[in-house]
């Protein structure tokens, strides 16, 4: 089993966190994982992306160049990464902020109203967790419980009170792509 993700958006949308939670959760489930961010002279609010590889074998390249699963949080990222999609790949995209669809008929595009659902929940900052819930539902790569464990470890005791709303966001995201 090997799952490769490319997760992209703009800085502040929590795309790096989505990737880290996937990697941490899979690590706790006993898998080999790697998380590789784009790095460089990026400006605040500029583009951010990371590649996550989860495998039951030792991981070769931590980069994802032919993307089987793309998670796209903003429009520039959709334009940038659509050509790099593997044939038959899955693209989950944030339809709240993206008013176009990917220009490919050989991939499956799945809209997720991330910001809309997060605002309904009363916390716009959970839009990334809505997307994470959708990813978990569509790929089954780890369970929501494992992702929550990873989030708990990341948040630490100071932000523990935010765990319930983040779980709700994940569950809503999962329900949205059923």
């Amino acid at each position: 089993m090997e799952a490769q993700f490319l997760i992209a958006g703009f800085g502040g949308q929590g795309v790096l966190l989505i990737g880290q939670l996937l990697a941490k959760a899979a690590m706790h489930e006993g898998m080999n994982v790697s998380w590789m961010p784009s790095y460089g002279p990026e400006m605040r609010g500029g583009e951010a992306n990371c590649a996550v590889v989860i495998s039951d074998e030792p991981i070769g390249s931590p980069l994802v160049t032919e993307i089987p699963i793309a998670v796209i949080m903003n429009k520039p990222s959709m334009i940038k990464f659509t050509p790099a999609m593997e044939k038959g790949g899955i693209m989950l995209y944030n339809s709240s902020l993206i008013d176009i669809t990917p220009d490919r008929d050989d991939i499956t595009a799945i809209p997720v109203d991330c910001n809309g659902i997060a605002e309904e929940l009363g916390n716009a900052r959970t839009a990334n967790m809505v997307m994470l819930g959708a990813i978990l539902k569509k790929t089954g790569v780890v369970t929501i419980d494992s992702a929550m464990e990873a989030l708990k470890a990341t948040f630490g005791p100071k932000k523990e009170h935010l765990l319930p709303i983040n779980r709700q966001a994940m569950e809503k995201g999962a329900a949205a792509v059923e």
Partner: protein
Amino acid sequence: MGQKMLMKGNEAIAEAAIQAGCRFFFGYPITPQNQIPEYMSKRLPKIEGGCFLQAESEVAAINMVYGAAGAGARVMTSSSSPGISLKQEGISYIVGAELPCVIVNMVRGGPGLGSIQPAQSDYYQSTRGGGHGDYRMLVLAPSSVQEAVELTQEAFDLADKYRNPVLIMGDGLIGQMMEPVEMPEHKDRTDLPPKTWAATGWKPGCGRDRAVINSLYIDPSVLEKHVNHLYEKYAVMEQTECRWQEEMTEDADYVIVAYGTTARIARSAMRKLRAEGIKTGLIRPITLWPFPAAPIAKAAEHAKAFLTVEMSMGQMVDDVKLAVDGKKPVHFFGRTGGIVPTVREIITQVENLAKEGK
């Protein structure tokens, strides 16, 4: 072994150094290694006897390393390619004065300021000395975050054992990537020689000679003797410190030689080539100097050909050719400037060799 943590290569190296007793860090910022000084700046001031200092330049930083090493401290600096070039003068002095220290180079694309993306184009600089004069350094090339941790811890012991700098050569990918890590519990080695040479303050009647830290030998016959002594140490290193990993080389027609990041990509290519029925093996040098020539020479007895893969225009390939000694063809594939080769590209290279019967 502790609990598994997801850590960035740079941070894991910094923590491993602290675990190994490193208490002094001098550096200057440069991408893609900034998490090493950042981590050290948080941790070292909180540790008794710990000192982090962001120097005014790379040249200053390496000379601070020189000073701390001369006083017998466990000391480290880190940088990336252009910064390592600036440190070369100091490194040469440190070797000349026979002092231990650990230097990390997270290599980026060059020449010049180049790019900030992963590269391996500092191989010549790392393995052939880099600064002026006759010298070598142990060069360790991790290919995972876990290995980076283990090699960093060991680097301090090796530096002390040989009184010589040890270079850890990674790249932007090893530094920036997060992978699961178990931080081994560090045990102080008891077989290391005491640092009787350290300049820790001499007083009349303190029972020892003055400790003189110096790399200047005006009399050529004295300098020649000194350099011969350094090369006696290097001969021991060549005999005892050479490390590599071999996979599926026994029956391999094609042997890929690659290190660091490139080796892990080559390993994926090897698996897929094996599945296609092309008998491929991998030799991964872990020490770039001393270079593991022996396993390559051995594989040359039965393999049809070698393919060296690097993130450079071809530097290690020279060492592979020396090891093969003309017995079999040695081919090269590389990407440079910050481009990481893909599994597909490596597969295509080997497939073409197999097709052409090379």
